[in-house]
């Protein structure tokens, strides 16, 4: 069932967000990037989740967002 998958995903994200808050991170793109990474790692490892739901739209949106965040950071460094 996807209850278990969603609960694990939520727990992983909660741990990551808590750690970022704990270290006093204020850059919002860092939170988004970590969340997106956790999403892709978890859904790749646990493929049964993907067999029950169609996450194509989320994948495209998250990849675009992640590329945007990374590009922006690279641009900031190079500027």
């Amino acid at each position, binding site marked *: 069932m996807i209850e278990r998958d*969603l609960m694990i995903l939520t727990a992983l994200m909660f741990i990551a967000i808590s750690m970022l808050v704990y270290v006093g991170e204020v850059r919002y793109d860092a939170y988004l990037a970590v*969340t997106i990474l956790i999403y892709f790692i978890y859904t790749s490892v646990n493929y049964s989740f993907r067999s029950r739901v169609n996450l194509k739209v989320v994948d495209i949106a998250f990849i675009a967002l992640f590329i945007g965040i990374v590009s922006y950071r690279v641009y900031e460094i190079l500027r």
Partner: protein
Amino acid sequence: MDLRYVVAGTIITSTSAIFVIYSLVSNAGLVLGPSLAVLALGVVVLVSGVTFNEPNVELLKLYVNDLSRTISKVLEDSGLLNAYRLRVCLSDLRVVLSLKPVKCSDITLGFGLASDSPYVALPVDLGKVGITEVVGDDLSGFLSEVLSRRFKVCRYVRILSSSDEYVVELNTINQTIYDFIKIPLSYVKILTLFLIAKFLGRDVELVNEELVGSNYVVKVRVV
């Protein structure tokens, strides 16, 4: 689609969106990051709810359709399609479809002839899915536990009458299996009869069945 995840996803998304707006308006940088992360999670839950589909359901639907066409043809050739008696032989874990009343002891699995009547006997062994004993004190509780909570066949089960004949209503049949109730040897019918027999500890026979809106009502008699 699974409405529970849609509702949960909508609540998470809308709540986090409010926090995102609040953090942008009040320039609270520490709130913006976690709010966006939760918003992303809400979107995942929402999309999971909207696109949720049990794996292999389409394949199983196809299989049931093809199988029911074959069985219908065999029942038609045997003269069992319209006028038949459906009986549960509890001791042998079998459901028997026949033209005339037949003894359970005369029945073997599959198609056959007993007491000058053609019959079809199917095995029903719920032990394979872990249902080995009766749970609960009343029939509606037992049927609800198995049909509603375990197999998600319907929303709940009501016993409309339990005097001479038992009238059982399966309220709001699951949309996925609704069409399969209309086929000649619907497994919902077989399962319901078998569970009633198991609870009563007696053989039972189908008297009548009907679909009333999205509810399925069966009338059974203890043999």
